[in-house]
């Protein structure tokens, strides 16, 4: 399929998991080139190479600017000479911005919310709609590079022990007004234990917990099982827990070995973020709760009884 560009997101030389997932798929499809912004391209080159990228095109340090306008301009500047057939972005804060800006620069559409890519002469994107009950397949009709925004956890990351990727710089053209937004400071929300979207076990709580003070039941169980705590949007919007806990269509996609939903009804927008879990356990007092339709084990019961009993039993 020719050359596939993958937007490589890194943090202090460490490549993000969504990037590694995209690399795994991209190398099935063609020659892989990572496209990157930041001052850590050299540090990331070994890992990017190990996962299948032969080259890294790096726009370099952004000097406090946001990635969207800068990397989109840099990519647009070399798209003709490099001639990628497809450009893959993860559905992340940065990935969406770059894809949006680039689509205008190339006057080319973006296929979004992709969970699979199929090589069918041209590339076809598979996107779930209606809470994942229906899949739509979409392809591009023009000969411009196809821009895809891919949801996290769509592919499995795997190293193939490739040698380090060769880094070359791509210039960022003058951004004029578009590049005027500057980051003045950065805050990291500390959390113990594994990250929500990487944990093997996720315990999520919903409005059925009744009040914010009861969320500790979910956190305690997650800690006890060595997993991460998550939440439905209802309790994120209510301010019980930060947005970073949210699982679902507008939150994180998780695919743990075990997902435990406590007091969550199972709205389609929640299920779309967790129904790829290997096994699902649900606790809900309503026998009609939709979450039971996808649970491997459903307990019709009160979270205020089941969770404390579970914690106590695990203590012993």
């Amino acid at each position, binding site marked *: 399929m020719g050359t596939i560009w993958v937007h490589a997101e890194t943090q202090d030389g460490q490549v993000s998991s969504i990037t590694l997932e995209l690399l795994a798929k991209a190398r099935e499809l063609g020659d892989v080139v990572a496209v990157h912004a930041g001052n850590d391209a050299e540090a990331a080159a070994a890992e990017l190479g190990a996962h299948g990228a032969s080259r890294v095109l790096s726009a370099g340090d952004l000097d406090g600017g946001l990635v969207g306008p800068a990397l989109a301009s840099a990519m647009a500047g070399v798209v003709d000479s490099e001639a990628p057939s497809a450009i893959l972005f993860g559905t992340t804060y940065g990935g969406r*911005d770059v894809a949006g800006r680039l689509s205008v620069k190339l006057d080319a559409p973006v296929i979004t919310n992709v969970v699979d890519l199929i090589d069918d002469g041209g590339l076809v994107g598979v996107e779930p709609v209606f809470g994942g009950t229906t899949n739509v397949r979409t*392809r591009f009709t023009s000969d411009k590079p196809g821009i895809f925004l891919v949801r996290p956890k769509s592919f499995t990351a795997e190293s193939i022990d490739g040698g380090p990727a060769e880094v070359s710089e791509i210039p960022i053209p003058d951004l004029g007004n578009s590049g005027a937004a500057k980051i003045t400071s950065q805050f990291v929300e500390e959390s113990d234990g594994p990250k929500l979207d990487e944990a093997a076990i996720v315990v999520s709580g919903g409005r059925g917990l009744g009040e914010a003070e009861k969320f500790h039941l979910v956190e305690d169980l997650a800690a006890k099982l060595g997993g991460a705590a998550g939440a439905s949007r209802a309790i994120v919007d209510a301010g019980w827990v930060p947005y970073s806990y949210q699982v679902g269509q*507008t939150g994180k996609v998780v695919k743990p070995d075990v997902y435990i939903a406590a007091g969550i009804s199972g709205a389609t927008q929640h299920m779309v973020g967790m129904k790829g879990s290997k096994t699902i356990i649900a606790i809900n007092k309503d026998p009609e709760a939709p979450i039971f339709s996808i649970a491997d084990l459903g*307990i019709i019961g009160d979270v205020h009884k089941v969770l404390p009993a579970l914690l106590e*039993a695990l203590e012993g």
Partner: protein
Amino acid sequence: MKVAVCVKQIPDPADPGELDIETKTLKRDVKLILDESDSYGVEMALQLVGEDGEVVLVSMVPNNERNGLNNALAMGADSAVLVSDDALAGTDALGTAKVLAAAIRRIEPDLVLAATESSDGYTGTVPEQIAELLELPSVTFAKEVSIADGSVSVKRQTEEGYDEVSCPLPALVSVTAGVVEPRYPSFKGIMAAKSKPVEELTISDLGIDSSQVGWSGGGQEIVSIEPAPEREAGEVIEDEGDGHERIIAFLEELKVI
């Protein structure tokens, strides 16, 4: 200060209509409502402009629908621009951004607000595409917004936490749910909305050719629509004081404990 707010009118998510497999179009004869995601932008705008600013809504539909706009006007927005044209049916995100950008350009706002993603399309690319078309700086995923001295300060959601971002006006900001608590329209607001100006435009009023919008303008096409493989339900049992034991047995079987 003048703030333009993008408001999408969508089928009620509780009753989303269905995809017509034959024509590959969304069947939606239902009445459209204000996308809840955009109620945050409207509220944010009202709070930012205060007493003497102006909030102008911008919405694009293929069918004259005003119901959702009326709701946002009833919240307190001053006026609206409605781009309505039969040719707009099936328009994708980039085409939508072109139309909205053209409408916003006429308004000459200091700030453009949108939601990070719509509830029905959720491409999440329209705001950044509008910013690029208008050559504006932008800050997406705002969870807190304030304005001082001709620039906007935003707490922007990140994977690790948040960034504080400063940006000179004019600019575009996309807001997440929870940035502010949207008000419910008052009875007075609902009555007042009826006499607020709504400028209705077609795409030719905006100088946009119909080849750039609609089903054919997008440069993409649906190949197929099919049901996704379903997940089977397992065992569902009533807790009779032993629910936790069943969970433990299950976890032991999976060898996670």
